[in-house]
């Protein structure tokens, strides 16, 4: 069969899954007074359409920032404005100022769902191009990788189920990766700047981008060619930033207010139950009450920087594409686990670079991607997305295990822990690391299935109403931590021989 038809079939399957998931409920459906992310997105359309641009980020009588005030960067606001113009054409009631609050109807749901799936024209082509041009193996294998990435349930459940537009920000970031991978550094940095201006959480990815480009410039010589490249990149970034922020640049008050909205430092170390270090530590020590807000901020900042330091330094010294991908995982995962004010959905930022590794490190990537979906279970349960969660997770597990033959491809070599296992061999000569990994995988998959089932079927004891969400986030946390260690080992211990260079190109 020709390659193009297999690619089209994979894309069609991905679209089918997205649309079928989107027929389910969304966050905050029929839950006044605050509703959920669906209403937030609708409200942003209302605000951006009806108010002058200077008022978007300010609290005015027409713009109550406590009711889903705009707290994403300008590109999101422009995107909302664009959607609002379409909504205006179809039914002006959907975005009428004040009156449209909490508007819900089947037709409106259809419209909102359609905007998300249309926004996939940023994400899906990037995935297709990445798999065709930047992943190794036969053309079959490339298509298999593509299908697995397109079926990743976490993103589908959050975007097409819960309701968000992560596909835009992640898609733009992926275009950035694509640009860097293909050697179009300027295009890549432009795409990543746009991603950053769509969602500030893309900062999780910014260090690897920075280190990779800087390292690359340094390689070319910071006094000659490298300097020119560096200047070009810097100019691209600055100009694209300026263009995005143009309406807010005239007045410093405007820019500051946008920044304040983007980084709400007053909101505390974490909210809800999220599978990161602070929330997990909270089970033992109540950090939030013991430490002042400022100490919390510094603590998380220092911890995060320390965690990303090794991978960033390594990338700076060795700016290859393979290192870059690993650094993206390590940086975003470290940010997720340690930084300030993390949402459970932010795990998608770590999931995206892991998707890019699914061809090279199949078992570990599949494992991580399943855990990341599982870590959002409490949220999905609240949204009434249990059925799609179960089905899409099963679909992803089986498709990826089969297509990528993940279990057979679990050797010391493929896991890239050769130096590590050599380290252990003198002490434990019969240690079979791949088998241990497989058993851990099986054990945790069963644990997650069991926990999913209990949180669905059983009522928590009256004394501990949050028992299941806490268990879910703890279980996910330990696996994330393990993954962070593993991916760091893979990145830092990569031998500097020629064999690897071949794989990278």
């Amino acid at each position, binding site marked *: 069969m020709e390659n193009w038809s297999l690619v089209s*079939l994979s894309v*069609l399957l991905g*679209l089918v899954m997205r649309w*079928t998931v989107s027929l389910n409920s969304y966050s905050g459906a029929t839950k006044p007074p605050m509703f959920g992310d669906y209403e937030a997105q609708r409200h942003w359309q209302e605000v951006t359409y009806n108010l002058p641009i200077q008022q978007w980020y300010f609290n005015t009588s027409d713009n109550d920032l406590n009711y889903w005030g705009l707290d994403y960067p300008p590109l999101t606001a422009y995107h909302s404005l664009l959607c609002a113009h379409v909504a205006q054409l179809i039914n002006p009631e959907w975005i009428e100022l004040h009156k449209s609050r909490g508007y819900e109807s089947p037709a409106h749901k*259809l419209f909102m769902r359609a905007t998300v799936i249309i926004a996939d024209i940023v994400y899906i082509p990037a995935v297709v191009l990445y798999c065709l041009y930047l992943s190794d193996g036969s053309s079959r294998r490339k298509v298999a990788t593509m299908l697995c990435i397109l079926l990743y349930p976490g993103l589908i459940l959050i975007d097409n189920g819960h309701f968000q537009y992560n596909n835009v920000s992640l898609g733009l970031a992926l275009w950035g990766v694509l640009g860097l991978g293909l050697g179009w550094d300027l295009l890549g940095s432009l795409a990543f700047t746009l991603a950053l201006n769509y969602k500030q959480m893309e900062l999780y990815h910014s260090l690897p981008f920075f280190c990779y480009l800087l390292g690359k410039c340094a390689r070319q010589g910071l006094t000659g060619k490298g300097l020119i490249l560096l200047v070009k990149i810097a100019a691209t970034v600055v100009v694209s930033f300026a263009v995005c922020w143009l309406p807010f640049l005239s007045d410093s008050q405007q820019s500051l207010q946008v920044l304040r909205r983007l980084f709400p430092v007053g909101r505390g170390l974490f909210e809800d139950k999220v599978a990161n270090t602070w929330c997990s530590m909270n089970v033992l020590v109540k950090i939030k009450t013991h430490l002042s807000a400022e100490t919390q901020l510094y603590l998380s900042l220092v911890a995060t920087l320390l965690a990303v330091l090794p991978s960033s330094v390594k990338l700076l010294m060795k700016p290859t594409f393979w290192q870059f991908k690993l650094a993206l995982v390590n940086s975003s995962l470290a940010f997720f686990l340690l930084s300030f004010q993390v949402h459970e959905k932010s795990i998608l930022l770590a999931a995206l670079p892991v998707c890019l590794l699914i061809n090279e490190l199949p078992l570990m990537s599949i494992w991580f991607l399943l855990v990341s979906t599982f870590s959002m279970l409490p949220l999905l349960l609240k949204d009434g997305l249990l059925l*799609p969660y179960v089905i899409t997770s099963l679909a992803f597990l089986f498709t990826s*295990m*089969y297509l990528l*033959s993940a279990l057979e491809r679990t050797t010391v070599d493929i896991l890239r822990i050769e130096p590590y296992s050599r380290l252990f061999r003198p002490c434990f000569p019969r240690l079979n690391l791949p088998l241990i990994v497989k*058993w851990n995988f099986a054990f945790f998959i069963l644990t997650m299935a069991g926990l999913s089932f209990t949180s669905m079927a059983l009522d928590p004891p009256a004394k501990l109403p949050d028992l299941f969400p806490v268990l879910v986030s703890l279980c996910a946390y330990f696996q994330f931590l393990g993954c962070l260690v593993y991916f760091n080992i893979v990145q830092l211990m990569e031998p500097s021989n020629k064999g690897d260079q071949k794989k990278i190109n």
Partner: protein
Amino acid sequence: MTFDQAFFSLVSVMAAPMLEDWSWFPVLAFGVSILKCLLINTYHSTDFEVHRNWLAITHSLPVSKWYFEDTSEWTLDYPPLFAWFEYGLSHIAKYFDKEMLVLQHLNHASPATVLFQRLSVIFTDIVLIYAVRECCKCVQRDRGSKDILGKPSFVLAVLLLWNFGLLIVDHIHFQYNGFLFGVLLLSIARHFQHRHLEGALLFALLLNLKHIYLYIAPAYGIFLLRSYCFTQDNADGSLNWRSFSLSRLVALGIIVCSIFALSFGPFILLGQLPQVLSRLFPFKRGLCHAYWAPNFWALYNVADKLLSVLGVRLNLLDANRLHKASMTGGLVQEFQHSVLPSVSPFVTLVCTLMSLLPALFSIWCRPSGARGFLRCIVICALGSFMFGWHVHEKAILMAILPLSLMAVENKEDARIFLILATTGHYSLFPLLFTAAELPIKILLMLLFTLYSFTSLKMLFRHEGRLISIPEASYLAGLVPLEVFCELVYPWTRWQQPFPFIPLLLTSVYCALGVTYSFINLYLSLLRTEGAVKGKAKGKSQ
């Protein structure tokens, strides 16, 4: 082998592509089941309520009242075995939601009810999966290809398991066709495997599950009589009257009659047979279903319409004397023809039989084994679809699914399959008219059509092009048709006065393709017959 090795080899059996094995089959089956589960929350038609009502009837009433109950307008109109099937399901249903089993709870569709009903379709599809597995084993020219995607059996499995029509009719619209077609395909596979008694038993069961399969009963009758009850042919392939085996006929008779006795016996004893039959065959309905199935009568209706308009224009007809109701074609079931003669059920019966006779005659005179029989089944199904009384558009699946078996073995059949499947599946689009399901049906249709075209093209890549340019352009015409009917027309001012135009266009356009495939199928029959004769001649010389 240690325990952990055993464990992982067990897992890898489920998840490892190996050479020359069937590991891909469970993956295909599992994949499509997952897709079916994703469709649980989609729109469901009144057929959902029909089956819920039947669950309630069979659960809460004694057998003697099953075919008399009429609290709901959706009375039981399937044969008794299907009623027993619903009875069995109802005993599982009570663990999901007891309320759905109460007769008076019309249109009860709680989440648990929806989940149960949807899952019941998905699980009974296991019959289909097993049947497809058996069919795949019967495929010739399967060896040689190392590439899994290039194996005819793989292609066949996808064409049957991922069939677009089955997916939308069963898992969105809501019916149990997957399970029923499973029984049919299994019966066909048994004939391929020369297990004729089993095949006959399965078909008798099928007839008692849903009587629409009477369409293809003539093919079964002639085939079994000719190729099973007569054990030998003459040297030139003609019938050897002396080889008649009475014991085989008796065995067949006992099997078929006992199934019918099991099914209808209780009602005969209760003296309810006329009532049951009147439920099964409601001839009060019109020539065409509300939405015209794309068959001969759709063309006939339109020809009548055109002629009457033309006649009025040319002052050959008096506009006042024409029947008033005829302009509502496509909406009202009763259709009065104004120029051409009106059609009665008897006429359709005669037309249907006339269309089947040549094919039946052919397998009587020149039986060419199970493959000839399969061709005859497809012709019977399509002939009945073309000329039958009150045909549903869904009945086209009865021709498309068996035709898939032929399509992976023969290039000519592949060509007919592509035309028939594409037009037939497209003609199912009006079943799903809700806006939310529009993307699903388009995506699934694209998925299936793209796959069937590229995979069949690859199977016959050494034998030239599959479909000619006129055929391809006809099929491509479906795209603008869809755009016009569902995206453009609803926004025009014609939508209010003439809401039926899209349906009419769809049905007429598809009727052309279906008719063309029907004619081509007959031509292929003649061609194979010619080939058989030629061979026979060659031998005798």
